[in-house]
């Protein structure tokens, strides 16, 4: 197990290094000089020079890269050019929106998908199964931002049950925050729930065909008991992997959904960074998102190996 963790840890570190090199190259090398790029066409050479100094862009590329990575590791993400504040502070502020949204959506998608998938597998080929599968087919085809718009149209504009957008801030209390995150979380969760329900169903169907289930039935358990006590837990293993992958889809989906509901999260921060040509913000936030995905997948892989010892040997 230790050698497995160590080898995964090595590939985690390598992935992070390569990802940071790619992001650095795209943002800092391809546009030529970032300072000129950020100031636009009408900038005087003197003002470009001032900005270059302010951004720490005076050194050679390797020095700048090391400076950026070293800063990231010590929690210094650079200074936003437009906001004139440390990027780390902005990110922390925005995380208060993005993180609860992602977790809320993850929770909803699990709460929806697991029972639906189990039901479909247990009633395979019958009405309940066909209904669930039909809905998942639809859930996969609906773009989450469009579903978000329809939700806003119905529940906010017509029924006035929930706000159509904006974020009251945590100072307003937990309830207003939850209210403002409900529609975005549902919109974000639906397509993921559809995928998850399908994985749950096919995994459970596979498990139900195995010998130990036949044994459980032979010793007198009803099919419902066999599903509840033995099959579901075994069938959850592939679901866990998909869940890790879905984290990256939720993060990415969140970027778009935040725009639908005008939520001041990381996604909005990135778009403001792009429109204001604030390359430092874009570079650091993209790196954070990618790092989050890489780390979550690493954790899932380790958890997977803990649950299923057969996987450790493959390392």
């Amino acid at each position: 197990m230790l050698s497995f963790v160590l080898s995964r840890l090595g590939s985690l570190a390598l992935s992070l290094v390569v990802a940071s090199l790619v992001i650095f190259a795209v943002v800092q090398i391809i546009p030529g000089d970032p300072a000129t790029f950020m100031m636009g066409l009408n900038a005087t050479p003197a003002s470009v020079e001032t900005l270059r100094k302010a951004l720490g862009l005076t050194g050679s590329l390797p020095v700048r890269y090391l400076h950026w990575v070293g800063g990231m590791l010590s929690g210094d993400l650079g200074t936003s050019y437009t906001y004139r504040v440390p990027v780390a502070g902005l990110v922390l502020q925005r995380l208060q929106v993005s993180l609860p949204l992602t977790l809320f959506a993850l929770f909803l998608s699990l709460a929806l998908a697991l029972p639906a998938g189990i039901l479909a597998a247990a009633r395979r080929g019958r009405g309940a199964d066909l209904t669930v599968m039909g809905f998942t087919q639809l859930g996969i085809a609906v773009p989450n931002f469009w579903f978000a718009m329809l939700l806003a149209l119905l529940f906010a504009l017509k029924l006035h049950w929930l706000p159509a957008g904006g974020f009251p801030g945590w100072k307003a209390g937990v309830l207003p925050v939850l209210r403002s995150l409900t529609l975005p979380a549902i919109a974000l969760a639906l397509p993921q729930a559809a995928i998850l329900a399908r994985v749950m169903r096919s995994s459970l169907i596979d498990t139900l065909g195995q010998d130990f289930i036949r044994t459980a039935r032979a010793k007198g358990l009803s099919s419902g008991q066999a599903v509840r006590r033995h099959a579901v837990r075994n069938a959850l293993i592939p679901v866990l992997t998909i869940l890790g992958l879905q984290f990256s889809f939720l993060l990415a989906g969140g970027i778009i959904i935040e725009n639908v509901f005008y939520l001041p999260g990381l996604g909005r921060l990135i778009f403001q960074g792009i429109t204001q040509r604030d390359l430092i913000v874009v570079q650091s936030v993209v790196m954070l998102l990618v790092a989050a995905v890489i780390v979550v997948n690493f954790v899932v892989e380790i958890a997977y190996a803990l649950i299923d010892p057969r996987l450790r040997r493959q390392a």
Partner: protein
Amino acid sequence: MRGRGRATLWIGACLAGFFLALAILSYVWTPYPYAAMDIAQKFRPPGPLHWLGTDQFGRDVASQLMVGARTSIAVAVVAVAIGMAGGVPLGLWAAARRGSLTDEVIQRGGDLVFAFPAIVIAILITSVFGPSALNAILAIGIFNIPVFARVTRAGALSLWTLDYIRAAQVAGKRRARISVEHILPNVANLLIVQGTIQFSLGILAEAGLSYVGLGAQPPTPSWGRMLADSQTMMAFAPQLAIFPGLAIVLTVLGLNLMGDGLRDLLDPRLRRRS
């Protein structure tokens, strides 16, 4: 099972084919010129003159949808082509050199790309080159490469253990030639099915990117941007928000059903399972 696979395939092909036909038709005919403004006719509900109504400038929604289909389909098709052109050779190469350093590098490289969701790739490209349909194509296409590499590798690995491939090796054929002459034709089925799935994902991704302004730029109509434009007018002109969304859903649904049907039809091993 076979009957149901056929039916799924047909329904899917009809849906997807309908929108493909609309896109092609839009080159020679649309009900109105798609960019023609007619302020007097703005915000018309669907009716005999404008089948799907008009937008805030009095432009015909049906015509814009038809031209928008062009954008969506073109972006998704080129992105699948990029994914196949890059991914299939990599997958074949990795399988032919199973367990080698090349194999490892190709696989880890794929993992790395998966850590950059398509939208993040698009954001990176846009932050440097500015928004355009080309960005969307590149972002989705780059994301497709490891998908096809994995599918090809997985399919090819099982083929390499078969006797006739061994025979070809013994006969002195080189690995590259075996990959092209014997492996590729036998993974083609898998690639067609995956291509359909990536096509539908490409349509969804393009819609998302153009919705947030990272895709095709005005005046080129695109489904995603039509939705973005409609958002502020949703309260009094909901039809503007509904039709482009329906177009996306039906196209994607059609392609997904087609993919499922094709898989049932092309892969006999799956027929017996669910």
